[in-house]
């Protein structure tokens, strides 16, 4: 392998892939970054075996020459040293040359490093993308999908499958579901570009959080490929691979009640702020529990009582209320998470009783749904 490359482009590529490199790994080769030079450009790969990030630097972009490849090939270099070295090299271009024993010489200006490398063939093999099963979604939509669901994944390991978000594609609709068995977040989209076929994967919550950090807030398309072992997201020059969770995601459709006894429409912001205030005192108590009760005059009372601290009550005007009167207790934290994830200035909450889960939706919008289980209080 022999090539020269512009320093700033290489450094930017390393920053991308470095997010996937973990310092504590049992597999020695994963402490490194794989560098592969082909005729089209340079590919950098970092991985902690859960997620892998690949960054591609084309040899020329438009009319601008970024890299000159003299000899193709690959090598794995220690991520920490490689990153530091590249950042501190003096000149704006860097030359690389690898000998047969994976010794890599890095030259820039008058500085010359010789770094011991490892065999690139030993690096984990990422799935080959086969263009048939690719579908495209805009980057900002993918980010929204993640933001609206990932907070609800379980953090406990008793049911590992719940630590992931279920992505299910059926009849051209993508349904993302996350639940920790106390609450559930669901987001549907029927965006153009979704495939007809059926897919059903569970992506670890951590991977999605990482992914949304990498994606830009633009409507550039992201290509998505789901394989048996991994899911792949590809934006312009960055590829993001994640392993999937093994097992079947529970059927959550039956959890969502399809009828209701009480329905209350509220202004999202006002309600969120009221819940936030009530939670100030609830926080000290157990489980962040706050109470909500509907009155006859269309107002909703939110209250919280911690005997050792004090209590708070607040009236919130509802936009509309119908059905039975209701007294219900729930976790303020779950409610705030759900309200923050909902887009739209107005919401409707549908209750089926004080001991039954209730559903929060934006008004006149079916795509987002948040479900919360109430807390039993005495």
């Amino acid at each position, binding site marked *: 392998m022999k090539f020269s490359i512009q320093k700033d482009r290489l450094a930017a590529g390393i920053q991308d892939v470095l997010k996937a490199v973990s310092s504590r790994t049992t597999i020695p080769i994963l402490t490194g970054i794989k560098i592969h030079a082909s005729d089209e450009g340079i590919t950098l790969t970092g991985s902690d075996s859960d997620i892998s990030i690949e960054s591609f630097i084309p040899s020329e972009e438009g009319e601008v020459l970024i890299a000159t490849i003299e000899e193709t090939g690959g090598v794995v270099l220690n991520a920490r040293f490689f990153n530091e070295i590249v950042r501190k090299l003096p000149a704006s271009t860097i030359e690389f040359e690898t000998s047969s024993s994976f010794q890599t010489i890095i030259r820039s200006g008058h500085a010359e490093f010789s770094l011991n490398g490892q065999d690139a063939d*030993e690096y984990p093999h990422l799935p080959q993308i086969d263009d048939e099963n690719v579908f495209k979604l805009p980057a900002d939509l993918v980010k929204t999908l993640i933001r609206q669901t990932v907070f609800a994944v379980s953090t406990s390991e008793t049911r590992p499958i719940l630590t992931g978000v279920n992505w299910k594609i059926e009849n051209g609709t993508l349904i993302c579901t996350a639940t920790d068995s106390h609450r559930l977040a669901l987001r549907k989209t029927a965006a153009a570009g979704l495939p007809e076929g059926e897919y059903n994967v569970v992506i670890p919550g951590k991977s999605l959080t990482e992914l949304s950090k990498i994606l830009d807030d633009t409507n550039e398309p992201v290509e998505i490929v789901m394989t048996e072992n991994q899911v792949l997201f590809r934006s312009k020059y960055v590829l993001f691979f994640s392993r999937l969770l093994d097992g079947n995601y529970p059927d959550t459709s039956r959890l969502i009640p399809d009828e209701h006894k009480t329905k209350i429409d509220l202004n999202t912001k006002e309600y969120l702020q009221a819940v936030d205030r009530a939670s100030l005192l609830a926080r000290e108590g157990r489980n962040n529990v706050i109470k909500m009760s509907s009155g006859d005059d269309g107002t909703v009372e939110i209250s919280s009582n911690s005997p050792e601290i004090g209590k708070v009550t607040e009236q919130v005007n509802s936009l509309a209320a119908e059905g039975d009167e209701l007294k219900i207790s729930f976790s303020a934290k779950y409610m705030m998470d759900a309200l923050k994830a909902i887009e739209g200035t107005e919401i409707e909450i549908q209750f089926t009783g004080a001991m039954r889960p209730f559903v929060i939706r934006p008004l006149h919008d079916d795509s987002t749904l948040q479900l919360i289980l109430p807390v039993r209080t005495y």
Partner: protein
Amino acid sequence: MSNPWKEAEKRQPIVMRIIENSLLRDRVAHAYLLEGDPGTGKKETAMLFAKSLFCLEPEDEFMPCGACINCRRIEHGNHPDLHAIEPDGLSIKKEQIYYLQQEFIKTAVESVWKVYIVNQADKMTASAANSLLKFLEEPSANTVAFLLTEQSSRILPTILSRCQQLTFKPIDSDRLKQRLVEEEISIPMASLTSKLTNHLEEALEQSRDEWFALARSIVLKLYEGLKGGGLSAIVPLSEDFYSHFKEKQQVSLALDLFVLIHRDLLSIMTGEEHGLAFPDRLASFQQDALLLSAEKLADRMASILEAKRRLNSNMNQQLLMEQLLLKLQGGHAFV
């Protein structure tokens, strides 16, 4: 280069046969317990098995080629779907098993198989063993566990019952001794190391180790000192002992040597003078054997083994040795 599978087959014909058949008939169990004395090739076998599962071009459909990229990566510890766990310090901690669990709720990185090797599985803490049990009970498809141990009796019975056991036969120590003598190791040294390990390379290395030669003579001197009566005789000797055996493993080795001395005495007592660990001491041991009853000897061995057990449970090493020496010298009345 000789084929490592064939080599292993020569040493452990039964075990390798079982593995071969399970591979050929596609009936790989989800957990194996590999049990056998040190040096019987448990780890090598587990690695060979793993290579067979991952190998791209197996010979005769089961023998790993040893040359393809997967075999090479397993050899270097770089295969992402193979996880090996070693005791972290004294025991295998719960976090290590937790790491495995994290790894195995996810799909494999590349292939369909996920393999984990737990070396010295008997060193798992109780909570680690119970965590492991949890996922031995609910094995996911295409996951294979190899638990390696020297003492299967120290594995939780609930784990034991969920594994297919592969028992590695100890290699005949006489044959090993002969091989060692052929390698120009002196007979006393060859007799001893062939008793301590089953592995030729290991035995050779030990036989040529100066530290080990000194260890042998210190332990023998200490034993002689014990016979000699008064406590005063032991004190200078035990000082040598502490400065030489510092690490826990070294003390453990010293205890092994003590056991072997007593085993020799017992052999001599029963008239079996062949295959001693210290053949050069035959004459002196014969004398000692005359002065001892079998019962007393058994008591002594029991206290050495007890000391060895306590060593693993973090006892102060010097106190442990002092207690043992007093016991060996004066019987139970002293302590």
